[in-house]
């Protein structure tokens, strides 16, 4: 991807970097410039906080998935079966 070097990012340029910012894939300098913009721009700041919140909330919900209590035993049995067939 070719993007011009950030100097003072506009709202559009900031938004284009939303995912990279949330996934911490920007350079320290780019991160600083985006955060500067977010500090000054309430609209962008709300969008970024909301998107980060969606990611965190989805992950938090998925962390509640519990494996069946007999899962390890079933895996063990599967491996024994593969050994027997081996």
């Amino acid at each position, binding site marked *: 991807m070719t993007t011009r070097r950030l100097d003072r990012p506009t709202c559009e340029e900031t938004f284009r970097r939303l995912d990279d910012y949330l996934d911490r894939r920007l350079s320290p300098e780019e991160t600083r410039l985006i955060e500067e913009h977010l500090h000054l721009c309430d609209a962008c700041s709300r969008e970024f906080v*909301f998107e980060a919140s969606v990611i965190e*909330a989805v992950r938090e919900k998925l962390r509640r998935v519990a494996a069946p209590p007999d899962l390890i035993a079933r895996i063990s049995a599967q491996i024994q079966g593969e050994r027997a067939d081996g």
Partner: protein
Amino acid sequence: MLESPQSATVRPSASTPGRPDPALETLLAGVAESAYGVALCLADGEATAVEYLLRAVAGACRDGTGLAADTDVRLWFLGILTREHLVAERRGPEQADSGDLDDTPDLLLYARSAAVGWPTAGEHPAAELLECLGTERVVTALRRLPADYRVLCTLYFMADLSYEEIARVMEYPAGTVRGRLRRARKMLQKSLWRIAEAEGMTHAPGGAP
């Protein structure tokens, strides 16, 4: 019963070629729980999730005898699991109906939440809506994505993998994950909102109708 693993890397194998390395049991026990979570998001229910997982274990037994000592067992096993899923998906008669998910605009959940009175500001603005949706509906929203995007989103949200790790698991060229994940996240937002609508949750508690 399997024991907890001491390490996530594979030691040199002394097992008979074609037979599972005894250490594999220990290694798979260490990744089983998180792999189940992934399988559950990919499958259509708990029974199918266990079925995928056991098929992946069988695959791991076949492939696991020649693993390099520095193999990341979790990524390796997730690769087998997701391939099992995608193969089953292609064979199966039913495909998820993605409808117009691909046309999802940016910030859909933000815009829709704002329109009906769910919080869009504060420290964790989306938490209340997601809390009302709950784990089961979030899993359902993931399952409704087209197969490749479902896998991508599941590896990102459920398994917490980095772009590079996702690329390794899905055997994507480096650099492909970013764009696909961007699209997948937007699809997931529409999928979540559709469920919220279907469940009559588009009126925020105390919010505007």
